[in-house]
């Protein structure tokens, strides 16, 4: 069925129509959340929160064709909150300890992700290099290169200027290339 019609129905509260739109994007949402948060349980939470929010606020969606961008923004905000909650919880935790633990989790999750993304980026070296790139640039690369969003869409999701996204990506890719040489 045409996506616009589905959105229209979903706006009226049709959960089946919503689930159908969701089915076209949920893998990307989960992958991206996993990529930002670095652990499966959090990514799962964040995606289901995002879904409820999106369903409740679907009427705010102005341009039906921009559904992907819109839901990704909500996801981004939920991810940020997740990170912040962790930050509040950390008050009672020894900082160094936490960072160490968290980094270990992240590296593990990243490694898992690497094996899953082999068909796209089939080089461990590249992933190692990618880990050294600025986190924002990594997000750009993930959305654009891995998930296949257009630069304009990436810019909307991250609420950045399109030129900025382009130049940041170009710069990051240049840096990646350099890092790759070092790794090899």
């Amino acid at each position, binding site marked *: 069925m*045409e996506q*616009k*019609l589905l959105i*229209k129905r979903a706006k009226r*509260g049709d*959960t089946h129509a*919503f*689930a*159908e739109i*969701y089915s076209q994007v*949920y*893998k990307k949402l989960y*992958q991206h959340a996993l990529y930002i948060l*670095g652990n*499966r349980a959090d990514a*799962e939470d964040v*995606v*289901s929160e995002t*879904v*409820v*929010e999106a*369903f*409740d*606020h*679907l*009427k*705010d969606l102005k341009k039906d064709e921009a559904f992907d961008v819109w839901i990704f*923004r909500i996801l981004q905000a*939920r991810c*940020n*909150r997740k*990170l*912040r909650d*962790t*930050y*509040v919880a*950390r*008050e009672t935790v020894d900082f160094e300890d936490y*960072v160490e633990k968290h980094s270990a989790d*992240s*590296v593990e999750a990243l490694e898992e992700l690497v094996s*899953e*993304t*082999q*068909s*796209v980026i089939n080089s461990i070296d590249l992933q190692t290099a990618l*880990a*050294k*790139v*600025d*986190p*924002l*640039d990594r997000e750009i690369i993930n959305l654009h290169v*891995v*998930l296949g969003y257009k630069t304009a869409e990436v810019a909307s999701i991250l609420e950045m*200027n399109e030129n*900025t996204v382009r*130049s940041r990506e170009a*710069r990051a890719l240049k*840096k990646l290339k350099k890092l790759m040489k070092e790794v090899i």
Partner: protein
Amino acid sequence: MDNRNDFLDNLEIPESLQPEHIEQMLNEHKKEKKNTWTIQKTIACCASVGLITLAGVAGAIALQSNYDTRIDRPSGLAARTEDKNGILHLVSSKKELENYFKYNHLNYGGDIVEEEMAPDATAPDASDSDYSFNDDDTDTSHSSTNVMVDGIDEGDIVKTDGKYLYVLRSNGILEICSAKEGKLEKISSINATEEDHGSYYAEVREFYLDEANHKLIVMFSAGQTYIQVFDITNPSKPDKAYVYTQSGEYYTSRYVGEYIYVFSRMWASELEGCSGIPSINGANMDCSQIYMSDGLVNSEMIMSAVKVNSDGRLEVSDSTSVIIPYNEVYMGHDNIYLYYMDYEDWKTCIIRFGYSNGKFDLTGTTRVNGYIQDKFAISERDGYLFLLTKESSNMSSENRFDVYDEEFKVVGSVRDIAPDELIYAARYIGDKVYFITYRQIDPLFVVDISDPTNPTILGEVEITGYSEYLHPYGDNLLLGLGYETVDNGYGGMRQDSLKLVMFDISDAMNPAIKDAVEIPNSYYSEALYDYKAIFVSKEKNLIGLMAYVEDGYEYGARYFLYQWKDDHFELAADYAIENCNDLRGNFIGDYFYLTSSNGIISVDILDGFEKVDEVKF
């Protein structure tokens, strides 16, 4: 693309996130909501006093929990001055900032952004003054950049002073061409970014023209934000003069009086790398100039007031920095408003700074329900803030118009405007605000705001399609640019060609449609979302914009010029264009100049819009 899908297919996704589970979950979610609603309704019917008490308790609980989350922060961040809404507080020490970013961003392997030293400001060479602005009787009346607020200049990629056209090309080269009665001549070019910016790609964004002092003021980013002044007393020999730098990527700016207010943004990851302390002309800002907000933010907005002296010297009057999520900027005649959507509770946070005489003064913050849907939906006048917002909850939504006083107390409102519709365009003109909402048809609403405490809907008029942008056309007319819509065969509407509408607003109680015209075979125009890309001149009776057209198998872009004659739009001319990006229309005297990144053409307005001349860059 196939590769991507493969990899996503192989990704192991939790059972709970599969679409069928989600559908089930949403069904339950819907039921829950319905139940809550029924219970509330029952209570309301049988015991209204009870409801008030309950609401009071609920409010107290909400406040309490709000408070709890706010005090629950690392001890290093405890002592500070807080504004009453808790949106912002001043950074107390460098250490606090360091801690904040240490805690706030769990990024492994983050990249430290190399700070670049600002190049030394160099005095301009004494310019050869053999060139003089000769005053003959050529008509040098001219157009200027289409801005949001009258009297507050904005940068753009093309400017004119009535003698020259200054065109910033997409490659960063600024071309200066003389334009006398349609005759075009390339005079000189400026490369604003010729210096080596290391690994940074220099991006020239826009510029200002200081006509009185013969200066071009170029805004660009190259690892940080630059303001570069060029002396054009002799336009054939532009001279590089002063430079100013501040951290972050150029975002936007305004030019009011002698001051350029420049806004730049640093991203979270950069903040972490350099402890969040921005630099101005290479020197670190003082912590007492930095405000931060609670919670996890992704950027820092740095704003400075830079005085442009008559000799082109740039003098920093004041700088401040605010660590907040990605925000928009609205600048009225009295205040700067930074606002952003907090997706957690779907509220808009607003931060207000006074800016008189180039000094920033944080005068208040607030959180309002809903969000601001259009850049033109916010305005200020006489100490009042006017906001058109949309608030939605539980599958329903409402548009509303609110007037806030200086304390951010609501003093006047219009509620429940066009429920479930979206605001597509808005414009404040004098003591009225005009706005367009849309679902199936496009009503234009007129709200009288002459008494801010009592805003009133005066009238409305409906038309098919919708407008995305509104522009006053003289005192009695209002131009709308948007789309026509047609039935899509599924019982809904589909967007058709671009459309111009002229509303008659002479009688606010009874606004009317004077005329509407579809731009033939068009499907998109940059002018829909970039107001600087539309040319509107009542003086020359001209409306110009570029549009992509599709005619059978022919695709392309054309520039359309319309005139308003006898209460109707009349297509005056249209031109096929090769480079459809960065198009701008301007007039000087009786000639119209269409500029792109590739060149300029001139046409004679009085002589059937015939092409007079052309230059290629």
